[in-house]
């Protein structure tokens, strides 16, 4: 039986020794913070024109996470490349020859990438929050306000879970191109469009990103049948399902 720490160490070497790791994680951070800051500044500049209803429902924390819908795409790319890079290059055969316990290999890989995504997610969410609040000026909130710390912390968890979901899907599809071709349009367009269509919304609110994003709201909005943690739980179920599927595919299929 391969030693778990040895395999974790090996996977850490793998993930740190390819360039895509740094650029995807830095992009996720930069895009989320920059877009969040930009939109916060825009809100401040146009505050006078906003209808009173919007002003009443204003969520300063969530506004600073406005960059998340773009930044998450970079994390999806990270998740896809961590798993898919093994298949597209043929490295998977070397990896499995070294660690034939397929579950151990997948678990170590997911654990290492998840740890990186968690650190990136937390750094990104807290930075995006403080940068956003700086641009919001008078309308800024603080971590001490109700629900804000949970939203900021939750945003970091959201980024982590979306990365894990991408890894699970890629482990099932075994191809980075196919995985990106499905995940990118889904999370960038399909999910948010469906969530805006009245009837489709009933289903779309259970999509991983729609359900998970609820935790980033400090001020409850909409009529979702779940709370912030409930939504994150739904997202976590998606992640578990995707990873379980990925594990089964890895276990059953020839490499």
């Amino acid at each position, binding site marked *: *039986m*391969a*030693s778990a720490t*040895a*395999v974790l*160490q*090996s*996977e850490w*070497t*793998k993930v740190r*020794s*390819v*360039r*895509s790791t740094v650029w995807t994680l830095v992009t996720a951070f930069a895009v989320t913070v920059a877009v969040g800051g930009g939109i916060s500044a825009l809100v401040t500049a146009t505050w006078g024109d906003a209808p009173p209803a919007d002003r009443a429902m204003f969520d300063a924390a969530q506004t600073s996470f406005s960059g998340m819908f773009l930044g998450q795409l970079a994390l999806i790319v990270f998740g896809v490349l961590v798993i898919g*890079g*093994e298949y597209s*290059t*043929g*490295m*998977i*055969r*070397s*990896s*499995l*020859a*070294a*660690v*034939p*316990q397929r579950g151990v290999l997948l678990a170590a890989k997911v654990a290492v990438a998840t740890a990186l995504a968690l650190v990136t997610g937390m750094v990104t969410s807290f930075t995006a929050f403080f940068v956003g609040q700086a641009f919001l000026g008078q309308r800024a909130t603080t971590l001490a306000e109700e629900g804000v710390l949970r939203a900021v912390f939750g945003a970091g968890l959201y980024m982590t879970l979306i990365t894990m979901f991408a890894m699970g899907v890629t482990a099932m599809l075994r191809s980075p191109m196919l995985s990106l071709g499905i995940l990118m349009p889904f999370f960038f367009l399909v999910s948010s469009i469906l969530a805006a269509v009245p009837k489709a919304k009933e289903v779309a609110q259970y999509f991983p990103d729609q359900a998970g994003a609820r935790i980033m709201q400090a001020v409850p909005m909409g009529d979702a049948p779940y709370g912030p943690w409930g939504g994150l739980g739904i997202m976590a179920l998606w992640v578990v399902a995707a990873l379980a599927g990925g594990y089964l595919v890895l276990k059953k299929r*020839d*490499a």
Partner: protein
Amino acid sequence: MIELEGLTKRYGDKLAVDNLTFSVRPGVVTGFLGPNGAGKSTTMRMMLDLDRPTAGSVRIDGKHYRQLDEPLKHIGALLDAKAVHGGRTAHNHLLCLAQSNRIPRARVDEVLETVGLTAVAKKRSGGFSLGMGQRLGIAAALLGDPRILMFDEPVNGLDPEGIHWIRNLMKDLAAQGRTVFVSSHLMSEMALTADHLIVIGRGKLLADTSMADFIAVNSRSFVRIRTPEPERLRDALAKAGASAPATAADGALEVEDLPAERIGELAAEHGLVLHELSPQRASLEEAFMRMTAASVEYQAGAPVPGAVPVPGAVPGGAVQQWGGSWEQRKQGKES
């Protein structure tokens, strides 16, 4: 020691590997020979538990691959040179493999030195030539200092210097008492490196024999003679009891059933001038082709009208039958 027992792999209704049973012993280079598509790579992937057998099993030193504790220390394999992430440096590629099997970091530099890649250790392997990629793959195989080594078509794409290097490496490894299992579709390559030979065609075992036996059984040996007076020589040979010699394209005679010494004596008795008297062996390549002709996956060219059809599956190991069908087909094509 690698032991295969009834190893079978089926893709849909196609049998890629058909009930293979053989052992690969330590201390010698065992060649694994077969035409393209014979099932060599599939067999090797099953040995490493990359592909799951439909039936049968492989045991590495008595254990299933998955039961091996830190497998790279037991068996090292070069499957294909591209089993590498091109974005990673040669050093990091080997390091991540080493770490997973708790092989000391210093060993990475050692194997890089062995395969001659020290100078490009910090270069990303995506830019490597085919030969460098092959060397990196061999470095990975050597990493755990394993007792068993497996190379799938190791000379593919190598320059003559690289081929020479690999041949010597394999012989050295076997001389150290290791089990060396190497596949090839080139008989000539095997003849230079292998001590033992396993031949497969269409997934079936056709031969499991020592190289020396294979040569003795399969290569047609004859004596090639050139003389200005072929007719007189034919008469002399006939009188000595030899069957009628074949005539080569350049007019030389080929005698199969008399040794060169006896022919020389005959020529001296009859005062015949000889320009050449040389014992020959038909190439092993020819013997191999004869053996596998009926099982070649992709035949070049369309069937010739009137040609004798190649019989389909023939029970494995029926060497003579394979040869027979090849002769028939050859004659059919020539007619």
